[in-house]
């Protein structure tokens, strides 16, 4: 199968910038790994999931919706080149699948799909997690995948656009290593998977008392980081900026951890405490979305747990729920 030696990676991606608006994992100046461009820093495919969510390429923190002036409303122009976004883990791809469906459902979000429509998605997997840990193989849900086998990047393709990108790479390795990684990925168990499902069940059967959420809410400083880094959080606010000749409407990521998110015009707030807002954040992903979409909408990317300054990300809270409220058969 096709493979790239580490020393070929830079040239390979540099060549793609003529055809694509390329976003890929880079090492920023202070050692932060993030999705960026080749100008932002050296390529850093290794190291595991990125702190920033790759889906921001399609749904940025703030973006223009339209500008209006002189009786003309102008939409944002479509991108000049298609996006090629590299760096999705298997879990990130689950998140992408989820929000693709969300943004397409009913009223289709053209702002999102203007970026997403022709974008090429590349996953990263193999033994390139933190400290060389295995990032499970995606095996699909994307156009192509770069799989680190310990010495080179195996390249698997799953679509025409994926294949066209790598057609210049020669077949240099057998598929045996990929099979081994695939097998290892299948038996790769993340304890958090069980935790999150158990917590979901406890929430859906109403086994978590209000006092628990008081405790969690007491630790929430409403930084909003959990929402802003979450690839399946899709809430946004809208603002209009009035310049002399035009009005510019933009939208920005919003957060259900803010009191203003649900405050009514009367001033009454049905989510008027940190406890209620913390409950809502977890409940939405683990109890409401399974009803609405048929699946838990936390795919364990780990970003909210990493960004939360007080340790109340979704996995940490779920773990606490399971520890506290799971009753044994003997009980």
């Amino acid at each position, binding site marked *: 199968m096709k493979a790239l030696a580490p020393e070929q990676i830079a040239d390979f991606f540099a060549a793609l910038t003529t055809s694509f608006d390329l*976003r890929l994992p880079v090492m*920023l*100046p*202070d*050692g*932060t*790994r*993030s999705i*960026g*461009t080749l*100008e*932002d820093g050296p390529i850093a495919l290794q190291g595991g999931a990125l*702190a*920033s969510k790759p889906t*921001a390429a399609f749904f*940025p*923190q*703030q*973006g*223009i919706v339209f500008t209006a002036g002189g009786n003309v409303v102008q939409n944002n122009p479509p991108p000049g080149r298609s996006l090629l976004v590299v760096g999705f883990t298997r879990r990130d791809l689950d998140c992408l699948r989820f929000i693709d469906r969300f943004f397409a459902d009913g009223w289709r979000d053209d702002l999102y799909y203007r970026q997403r429509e022709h974008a090429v998605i590349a996953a990263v997997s193999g033994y390139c997690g933190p400290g060389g840990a295995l990032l499970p193989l995606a095996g699909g849900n994307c156009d192509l995948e770069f799989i680190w086998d310990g010495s080179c990047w195996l390249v698997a393709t799953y679509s025409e656009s994926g294949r066209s990108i790598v057609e210049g790479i020669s077949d240099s390795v057998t598929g045996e290593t990929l099979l081994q990684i695939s097998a290892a990925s299948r038996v790769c168990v993340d304890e958090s998977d069980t935790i999150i499902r158990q917590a979901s069940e406890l929430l859906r059967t109403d086994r978590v008392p209000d006092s628990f959420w008081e405790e969690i809410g*007491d*630790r929430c*400083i*409403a*930084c*909003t*980081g959990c929402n*802003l880094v979450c690839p399946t959080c899709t809430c946004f*606010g809208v*603002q209009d*900026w*009035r*310049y*002399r000749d035009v009005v510019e409407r933009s939208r*920005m*990521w*919003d*957060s259900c951890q*803010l*009191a*203003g998110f649900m405050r009514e015009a009367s*001033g009454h707030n049905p989510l008027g405490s940190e406890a209620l807002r913390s409950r809502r954040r977890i409940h939405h992903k683990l109890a409401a979305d399974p009803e609405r979409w048929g699946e838990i909408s936390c795919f364990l990317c780990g970003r909210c747990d*990493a*960004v*939360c*300054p*007080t*340790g109340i990300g979704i996995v940490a809270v779920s773990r606490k729920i399971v520890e506290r409220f799971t009753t044994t058969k003997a009980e």
Partner: protein
Amino acid sequence: MKKTLTVCPYCGTGCALYLVSDGGRLIGVEPSVTHPVSRGGLCVKGWNAFAFVQHPDRLTTPLIRRNGELMPASWDEALSLVVERLRSIQQHHGHNSIMFCSSAKATNEENYLLMKLARAVFFTNNIDHCARLCHSSTVFGLAETLGSGAMTNSIACFDQADLIFVIGSNTTEQHPLIGTRILNAVRSGTKLIVADNRRIRLARHADLHLRHKNGSDVALLNAMMHVIIDEGRMNRPFIESRTENYAAFAENLLDWTPERAAAITGLQAGEIVAAARLFAEAKNAMIVFSMGITQHSHGVDNVRCCAALALLTGNLGRPGTGVNPLRGQNNVQGGCDMGALPDVFSCYQPVADPDIRRKFAHAWGVTALPDSPGLPLTHAMDAAAAGKLQGMFIMGENPLLSDPDQTHARRALENLELLVVQDIFLSETAALADVVLPAACYAEKDGTFTNTERRVQRLRKALEPPGEALADWEIICALAERAGYGGMRYSGPSQVMEEIASLSSSYGGISYDRLNQHGLQWPCPDAGHPGTPIVHVEQCTRGLGRFTPVTYRPPHEAADDEYPFVLTTGRTYFHWHTGTMTRRTHLLDREERSSFIEINPSDAGRLGVHENDIVLVASRRGEIRVAVRVTGMVIPGVVFIPFHFAEGAANALTNNVLDPESSIPEFKVCAVRIRRIV
């Protein structure tokens, strides 16, 4: 798309973040994962730090008042006018008839340059900045007791304390990424004492919450130290080897029994004893304070007591200990370090010292520099109100909202012959100006900020300023040039830092090439020095730590029959000072749209007011209308109003009475009455 590593423009915590831009537009923020302070997190203001930068209200061209209206003008005209009129005022009224107000929002380099402009070009020491309003009492009190007016320890030390004593700091709201360290430490077993009569978030996690009366900190701290000495819990070896004046200090505490302090503080004597024991028993105890300690007419005395408590128990110079004033603004530490103060050059070198003056005069290429300390900001406003100061140049401050007694502040500003304001938005103060100079904001320029733990960090330009706006340092240098001074020609801020380092020992080893990762903590005296996370390790900066006996003085104004409530003022989590940036940030503005007053349920019941009722709040100086919040956050008899809002401005009510030593106003206590009007 581009990602630019820079420093958050809000509080003094100094979190690092990346500004994300695309095609010349800011589209978001990402935290730095490796930063030793923020460690991959940000608070809500940090996450929204990009959102005001390209607001349509940004100033884009100089403005000159003509026929009562501020009209667009060229830089050439505006700069010439500013220099000519400042010079003209000085010719008529003397060198000290003008005042320069620097900015804790501006960079170190800009603060240094404005200080240089005032002293070398306009020959006046009349330069100050908003540190006068927040931590001038800290700088004075800690310089006297320890020899250095900054945080003794590092933010990392919060993870190493066995006990944290927070007095007068709402840390989770005002220094959120420090506050969360405290929350995490408590979960790991660190004891927490909170002394603050508002039931702030930290209080909910505290082992002991002391809700003492406003302005009774000296009584509380004196009594705690009385108990420690009385029970023999002081650290005798430390006192003997590292301090002076203990005997006089201890004698002063003899009659500060918990019972006496209880009568003043409103606490139970047992609570004071418990606090003293908890503190003294801890192996490593850390004192954390902020505006609740400093903004009093006895602010320096409060600081002296905090320092004395650390000295008495030997909690100094080690990880997890120390006296830790949390600086409010992103660069208020740097503003002080750079000598934007009336009595010192950079790094606290006194203007009164002839050798120091000679050193700066030689470096700056001038024959002489003014020798007597200039006016503190608060005195300058008094002088302007009294017609004794004619010109004021304000860079990035909004005293009409931030200074005490707004009527007084307005009178002062309107009395001036010339008011020049250099800012990013047309603030309430800028709207009164004769000349307005449009400045670049933090995202549009290079420079350094110094955070609360003395960490000098680089901010980096992510995009061009709007219209004709220029970086503050460029404007200052252009003014110097207009004034005929050729000593302020720099290739950029890094060259300014070279000059700062050459003249200021604590910054001697600071240079841009050494700040590329996450900065250096001063003292950093030479190019090989790694920086100093903890000061006063072997000995205090001044040598021996000094105990100063403190006499309790009550706040200047007490509640009485006419004005039966004590008003205390401060900030909310979602807004920054006078709101020029945060009120133009959609999500932050949505969270807190307007001014409010916190009233205890028992008081609300007595007044017959309910949640969201509009009330008239009046003090002896003014009155405002604000919405009611009925909450147990405040104790009966005490109300709280934030000072962010021009409509419902808390500082229309506050008292312009000053600490005699530091000239800090008593923002934290004044008497008001409340009446329901809707």
